[in-house]
């Protein structure tokens, strides 16, 4: 398959998140990644509710069907479980489907196919079949998205063997990880965040790949380690930058992938700082924060100077109303407070 060569050619991983070059919007970066994949490999298909309509899945798929045809870029019936199974069966037979959803909430309909089928077939088939499929969804927030349109469900899936889960925060990563996901021979879930999708950033042209399973330092510091992904890490960066005058600095690690998890970078940083704040866009309980917090208490215990802290969502459904949303989601003030607490702790 053409991916090997194309990706070997790319130099990206040597140069994570370049500061100079062409600036692209997050959405355009994703659109470009899909276009490159469609152009490179005739077995790549892009499907999902509305991928070929004028809205083009928030612009991520806009006009792809015009260039690559409606056989390869097509709208689907509203049948999330069935269509996920269809993607799995196609992937088992040489196709590389990219199945897009407006919201992760809709993937809950497909858990039987995701958890009991797509992620397990390679194992059950004793390695004879692989399932190179990508399922993409954009986590919603605000404007009344509410309990059924703003769920960040990555925490529900982190424990599922055979899956890979990607949560980018920058346009550069969004493109490079989408290409890496399509090139990967396993089922990969990509959870974007609608608010990250507003970002612009430097995005090299052509094919490059961001390695799945490797986090990056967004900031280097001494007082504590903040680790997470997606919009949560974005907010963390802004907050720690605001605190620079208070002489507070932190290692801020953008994991970019939550499964496989980059244990090395987390433990490396905690060894230095001795303090960790784990952030996530999902519920704190039983989710990504919990896994990382436990990991540190297990493998980084001797480094820890103070309690592990987590900042995600409370054990409450997302409310629809604007005012309630303001109380529901962590904001910069919450960050300032928890970081101050952690720094003074001993």
């Amino acid at each position: 398959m053409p991916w090997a060569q194309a990706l070997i050619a790319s130099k990206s991983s040597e140069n994570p998140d370049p500061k100079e070059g062409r600036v692209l919007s997050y959405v355009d970066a994703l659109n470009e990644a899909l276009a490159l994949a469609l152009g490179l490999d005739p077995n790549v298909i892009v499907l999902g509710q509305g991928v070929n309509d004028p809205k083009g899945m928030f612009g991520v798929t806009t006009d792809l069907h015009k260039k690559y045809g409606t056989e390869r870029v097509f709208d689907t019936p509203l049948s999330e479980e069935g269509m996920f199974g269809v993607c799995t069966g196609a992937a088992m037979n040489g196709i590389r489907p990219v199945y897009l959803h407006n919201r992760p909430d809709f993937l809950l309909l497909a858990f039987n196919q995701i958890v009991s089928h797509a992620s397990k077939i390679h194992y059950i088939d004793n390695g004879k079949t692989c399932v190179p499929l990508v399922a993409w969804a954009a986590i919603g927030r605000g404007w009344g998205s509410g309990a059924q349109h703003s769920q960040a469900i990555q925490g529900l899936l982190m424990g599922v063997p055979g899956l890979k889960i990607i949560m980018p925060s920058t346009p550069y990563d969004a493109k490079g990880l989408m290409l890496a996901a399509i090139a990967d021979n396993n089922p990969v879930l990509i959870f974007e965040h609608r608010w990250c999708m507003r970002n612009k950033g430097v995005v090299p042209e052509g094919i490059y790949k961001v390695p799945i399973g490797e986090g990056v330092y967004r900031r280097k510091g001494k007082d504590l380690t903040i680790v997470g992904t997606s919009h949560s890490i974005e907010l963390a960066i802004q907050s720690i930058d605001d605190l620079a005058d208070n002489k507070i600095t932190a290692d801020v690690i953008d994991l970019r992938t939550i499964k496989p998890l980059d244990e090395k970078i987390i433990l490396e940083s905690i060894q230095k700082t001795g303090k960790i704040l784990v952030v996530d866009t999902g519920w704190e309980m039983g989710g990504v924060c919990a896994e990382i917090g436990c990991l540190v208490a297990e493998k980084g215990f001797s480094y820890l100077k103070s309690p592990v802290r987590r900042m995600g969502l409370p054990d409450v459904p997302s409310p629809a109303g604007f005012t309630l949303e303001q109380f529901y989601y962590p904001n910069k003030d919450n960050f300032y407070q928890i970081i101050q607490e952690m720094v003074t702790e001993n």
Partner: protein
Amino acid sequence: MVKVTNPKKNQSPKISKEILLGFYYDMLRIRRIEEAIESRYHEDEMKSPIHLVMGHEAISVGSCSSLNKDDLIYCGHRTHGHYLAKGGSLEGMLSELYCRANGCSGSRGGSMHLLDKSVGMGGSSAIVAGAIPIATGAALSFQLKSEDRVVLVYLGDAAVEEGACWEAINFAALKKLPIIFFCENNFYSVCSPLEMRQPPNVQIYRKAEGFGLPTVQIDGTNVLDVFECTQEAVARARKGKGPTFVEALTYRWRGHGGAGDDSASGYRDPEEVKHWEQFCPINGLYDYLITMNLYSKKDKDFAEKKIKEEIEKAFEHAISSSNPQEMDLYTHVYSQ
């Protein structure tokens, strides 16, 4: 372009004048409320994803008119018309859209979760087809408690693509539950036309037939047709004869969500919208009432005035109501 069924305006049903005038008033009221919401939506004070029902009014009014107050309705994301037709409070609805503490769902639901248990608006789901099995369960509860109540659940043409819809329909048919599955086929799912989602030769109501339900396809822009077929279905349900599946052909005049028509974006032909606007459920009935000498221009002006006043009062009430407090976020996660 979608083929339209022609509303037979010349039918003379055994429907009393009062009921006919009620149809007209209720449809007009829903239309004016939607227009008022639409006209203020750009102010960004109603921070909720609205799905306007212009073009669907005959379905809400014709079907809810066949139900008793203690019968339950359930629906999907396009709630406004059904909520209002079943008797939901306008003030509660607008407060909900304005995210006020006194909204009909306490600002937890928004436009997609308008709720008024007191009048039998049982609930809705923002997940397409999510409410169909739930409504079926409500019908099961009526059967188990041998209550003389029925359930009517509204679903879109995309909802029948979800497997759970057929799981619920099979169970309802198996148990002969007192429920009406009412499909509002407006030929689109967001911007996806029906022919991209279901085979051309297939008719939605015929699918339900195969699952063992009495089924009928009607003109959803004709409130008289909607009323009569719902009456039949409800009677069947009350007699313990089981569920009915209704497919009502209609059209969404506005974009899938938000204010205004979006056909300019190119997913549908603006001509198609014009074409359907000729089959306005409200004007259609108006012409009928006029030809039957049951109504006059004066009556209409009076109705318009009354509705206008009600709407203005309700907006003032909503806008002047107060927002929820932080502590409200944490209530009702669990029931005691």
